[in-house]
């Protein structure tokens, strides 16, 4: 398994580890519930260095990213970030990513850890425009600050009022605790927060500086266990569970990130036809259990005696005190469903996401 530059730091904090996308990552430091609530109430510190970074630059970069992405990259100005999908020719989702525009013809794609090699190959394969494409994942560390006190923590380490000035889905390069950092107002928790990109060799120094400040603000480090419950409550899909190459953006409920009017891109024909005909094979919905039993990924969803789909993510919600999840089900399913848990059916209702 691969390890991030902060592995030894996590060990010294007595983290429990888990395998995720080929990486040995901290699952939790204290308890998932405590870490989850720290992010909702104060601030959490995350090591997300397993995420991948692919730079696309030079003549042809604009053309290449616009061909790969379902969202309209041409709408970005320098210093803006966009959530987008990469689709294959059949409209299936290759990955869901963030694209950062540094300047004209200069972008970074931030991709899921398990997909780094796949995405890098995908980008190179479609590089008819001859952009310069490089995988900088191993040289880059990513540390996130998430929660209502995230700005107060970052403010201590940045010049002027930068921490309060960067707007949602914008980024800027500055110094954080003296370390050159790309500060991005993004996250995967539903809270205000930042994702901080630094050289791998600076990761430990940045973590140590932020760690003390996070503790002083009443927060704590947060592992992937709470990251999963936080993103689920916020209604954010996880690649590999809630979507994959056999799911289109429309089937994952991500149609607003597909801009069919932007010109050609990979998968457009299929997605356009799917939208016009409305012939989704499945749809992703949020559900809430009406019982205390927990629905987990892979459990069957029933309606009127038929299996109509499967749970794709499911967990107890530490903020709501009930069990929630995403399910991929037949598009004409009604609001009341049942979920099969250990051979018994438990009632659930389809609800709007985000859950919080």
């Amino acid at each position, binding site marked *: 398994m691969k390890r991030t530059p902060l592995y030894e730091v996590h060990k010294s904090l007595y983290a429990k580890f888990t395998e995720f996308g080929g990486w040995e990552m901290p*699952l*939790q430091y204290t*308890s*998932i*519930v405590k870490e*989850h609530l720290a992010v909702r109430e104060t601030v959490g510190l995350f090591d997300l260095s397993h995420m991948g970074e692919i730079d696309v630059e030079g003549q042809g970069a604009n053309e290449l990213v616009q061909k790969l992405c379902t969202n309209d990259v041409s709408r970005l100005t320098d210093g803006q970030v966009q959530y987008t999908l990469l689709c294959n020719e059949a409209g299936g989702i290759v990955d869901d990513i963030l694209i950062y525009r540094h300047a004209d013809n200069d972008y970074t794609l931030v991709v899921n850890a398990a997909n780094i090699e796949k995405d890098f190959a995908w980008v190179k394969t479609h590089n008819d425009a001859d952009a310069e494409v490089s995988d900088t994942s191993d040289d880059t560390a990513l540390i996130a600050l998430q929660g209502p006190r995230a700005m107060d923590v970052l403010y201590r380490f940045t010049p002027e009022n930068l921490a309060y000035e960067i707007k949602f889905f914008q980024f800027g390069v500055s110094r954080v605790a003296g370390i050159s950092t790309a500060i991005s107002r993004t996250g995967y928790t539903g809270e205000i927060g930042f994702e901080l990109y630094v050289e791998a060799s600076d990761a430990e120094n940045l973590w140590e500086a932020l760690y003390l400040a996070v503790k002083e603000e009443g927060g704590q480090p947060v592992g992937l*266990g709470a990251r999963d*419950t936080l993103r689920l409550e916020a209604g954010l899909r996880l690649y590999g569970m809630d979507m994959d190459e056999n799911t289109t953006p429309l089937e994952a409920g991500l149609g607003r990130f597909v801009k069919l009017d932007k010109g050609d891109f990979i998968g457009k024909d299929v997605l356009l036809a799917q939208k016009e005909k409305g012939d989704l094979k499945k749809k992703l919905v949020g559900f809430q259990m009406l019982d*205390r*039993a*927990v629905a*987990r990924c892979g459990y069957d969803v029933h309606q009127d005696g038929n299996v109509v789909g499967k749970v794709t993510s499911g*967990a*107890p919600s*530490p903020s709501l005190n009930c069990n929630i999840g995403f399910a991929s089900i037949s598009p004409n399913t009604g609001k009341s469903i049942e979920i099969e848990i*250990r051979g018994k059916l438990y009632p659930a209702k389809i609800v709007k996401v985000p859950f919080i």
Partner: protein
Amino acid sequence: MIPQDLKYNESHEWVKPEDDIATIGITDYAQSEIQDIVYVELPEVGTHLTHKTEFGVIESVKAAFDLYAPVSGEVIEVNESLLDTPEQVNESPYDDGWFLKIKMTDSSELDALLDADSYQAYIEAEHA
């Protein structure tokens, strides 16, 4: 601290025998590994449990864990308070967090269980 007066299963349940009645729960080590317990599914009174087979499930925030019967017998009492406050298993695994009382059908099964010292050695080996 592993209580000296209990017997232990390798799947981390404890048994407290009193005559032919056995109280069953999970160990402090098990609760600390599972953490954040949100749901406990237990059999009804009258159910017959068989040694080494599943009798219930614990759900944490992260995952579900099967429970295995350390001895055979009929369920005579269930700790109903765990339905509303499953966190008692985290807070008090040897007292308030007990699961079941069963009437043992073969108390010689107790002899095959681990005593406190053997269980201590067992979890140290598992953790190493």
